[in-house]
């Protein structure tokens, strides 16, 4: 069964790194299957972190190596594709259902360029996130990718991504948009895995847990919290009396994180969380190695 993996979490916790590590891991494990990384924002953080010199345009799939592919989303293109898909499913089937996809695309492009429609698209609540999610869903339906890894925006915008699709279902009680939103909801519920990345610090943990609960209560979606930059061993301070005070505190803080994490797990009656190590630059530099290491340590 094909799967979509959504990766989210507070800003700066390592969402992109985790997405890359997971994709690399899956690509190595299943060398005969195709894996796709989708970056929801157009910042191309994935490519920057990989330090590859590729300059793809939005919504175009680029091959990173063998079976690993990458694409970042461009809202206008997503909406155009979404519209074009709608045109083939729409009520206007008599006329438009029979058109070839090229003409549908051309038509969708014309619609978007229309000034009045364009203002509507940008103002209509929920249309933007829905078409982004629509594109991810479309790639899923192609049945071409064994795994789709989605590097999502931070917590707040991720919630919007999910909730707007649900709202579209209410906003349009019938018709193609309703059906599409419902199909997306189905995939979210049954064929997706949502990972919330966090650090073993109070604020990110709190935010991660709130998101997990909200996803469960509001949308009946399951998710998992994963801890990044975690230290398995603590450093004894006995031999480091010559350390400046703030660095001593820093080490104490790091040492404390493990007890904080244990308390968090107990307080929220969670089973043990998956933890990933804090990698040094040296470890990250052999990138492929470090991605494997990221996974090896966690298990």
């Amino acid at each position: 069964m094909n799967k979509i993996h959504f990766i989210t979490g507070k800003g700066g916790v390592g969402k992109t790194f985790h997405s890359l590590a997971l994709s690399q891991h899956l690509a190595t494990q299943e060398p005969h299957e195709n894996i796709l990384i989708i970056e929801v924002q157009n910042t191309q953080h994935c490519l920057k972190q990989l330090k590859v010199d590729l300059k793809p345009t939005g919504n175009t799939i680029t091959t990173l190596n063998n079976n690993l592919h990458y694409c970042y989303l461009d809202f206008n293109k997503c909406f155009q594709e979404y519209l074009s898909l709608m045109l083939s499913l729409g009520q206007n089937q008599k006329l438009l259902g029979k058109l070839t996809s090229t003409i549908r695309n051309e038509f969708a492009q014309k619609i978007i360029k229309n000034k009045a429609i364009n203002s509507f698209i940008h103002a209509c609540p929920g249309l933007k996130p829905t078409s982004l999610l629509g594109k991810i869903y479309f790639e899923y339906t192609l049945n071409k990718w064994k795994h789709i890894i989605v590097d999502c925006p931070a917590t707040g915008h991720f919630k919007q991504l999910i909730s707007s699709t649900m709202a579209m279902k209410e906003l349009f009680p019938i018709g193609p948009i309703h059906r599409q939103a419902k199909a997306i909801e189905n995939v979210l519920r049954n064929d997706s895995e949502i990972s919330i990345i966090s650090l073993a610090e109070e604020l990110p943990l709190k935010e991660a847990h709130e998101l997990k609960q909200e996803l469960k209560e509001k949308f009946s979606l399951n998710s998992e919290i994963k801890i990044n930059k975690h230290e398995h061993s603590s450093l004894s301070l006995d031999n480091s009396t010559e350390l400046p005070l703030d660095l001593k505190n820093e080490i104490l803080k790091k040492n404390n994180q493990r007890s904080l994490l244990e308390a968090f797990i107990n307080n929220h009656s969670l089973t043990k969380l998956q933890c990933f190590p804090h990698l040094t630059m040296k470890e990250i530099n052999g990138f492929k190695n470090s991605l494997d290491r990221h996974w090896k340590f966690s298990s």
Partner: protein
Amino acid sequence: MTSTQLILLLGPGGVGKTTCSASLACALATQNKKVLVLTVDPAKRLAQALGFSQLESSLQTVTHHQIKGSLQATWLNHNNPLEQLVTRHISNPTNLKKLMNHRFFKIVEHQLGGLNDYLSIESIINYYQMGVYDYIVVDTPPYQQALDFFNSPQELIKFFDQSILNQFTQPTTTDDSSNHFLKKRLQQVTSFGKEKLTNTFKNLIGKEFFLELSEFLKAMQPLHSQFITQSHLINKLLSSASFFFVSTPENHSLDMSLELFKKTHLQFQKGSKSFIINKCYQSSSPLQNLSKHSKLIELINESITKQNTILHSLSQINEIKSVTQLSRRYEKNLKLESLLQIGQTIKTHGFKS
């Protein structure tokens, strides 16, 4: 116009914006000035440092022997923002009731971002126009939201602009006749005129939807002119404001702060712009001669090197008025004295009047 000085703090989440805002406000209030601090984050830790059990959305006065002027704090909070807005601006009770019972009301209230931001903007303008404060310090929502924050009146204007919808709600003049051959249809489609385009879009989305939306927006009309006035006002206020960009010495948060800085600079060239780099290590040279070369030390050394690079590269940017370096704090319970101390540092570095 009053002589109130507006100070805004912007940056990604978790870098200490709220703490810096409160600190700067405290420090300014020590010199016989009337200061108001508006925060979006009701953190208990901060409230307690200011001497309250929690932050409320009414004005609370901070007292301390070092505060020679006055300091008030409030939390910018709006439950049910759309409800607040419509009850404030729509006077006809029948219209109001009809609007609030509309199917779209709840959906829009939850989906239309920017309503909360907009209400905060209204509050800022109101406090400014009162003319009693020397400084108003505003703590903004994290990163991307901060960009949307000041544009919220603009965005709402776009959404509530009835004229866009008129094109979709007017009756269709020509209906597609379904008796044409496919070939002819293809020609039709590729040479569609403006009217045909809107009609097709209308059919695709559903005529009923547009009628419903149009009815809803018509009822919201009184808000539209309000949005336009406020949008104009806030832009005027912001053009003379001072901006502080808060970041930690990490690439990720610096990238975001720099982007905020660039966008703000494009829009508001006149106001002064400074940086605050929070959570810095005091040591500026990496640790050496440690017999046990642990990984943790290696990680800390990396952070110190990164911190140096970041501070250096910021100092090279001409448009930045000053860069304040704040050290990492490890205190569990924040005290007002700590806030005063942090604020004093920001004030002396980045706030030369």
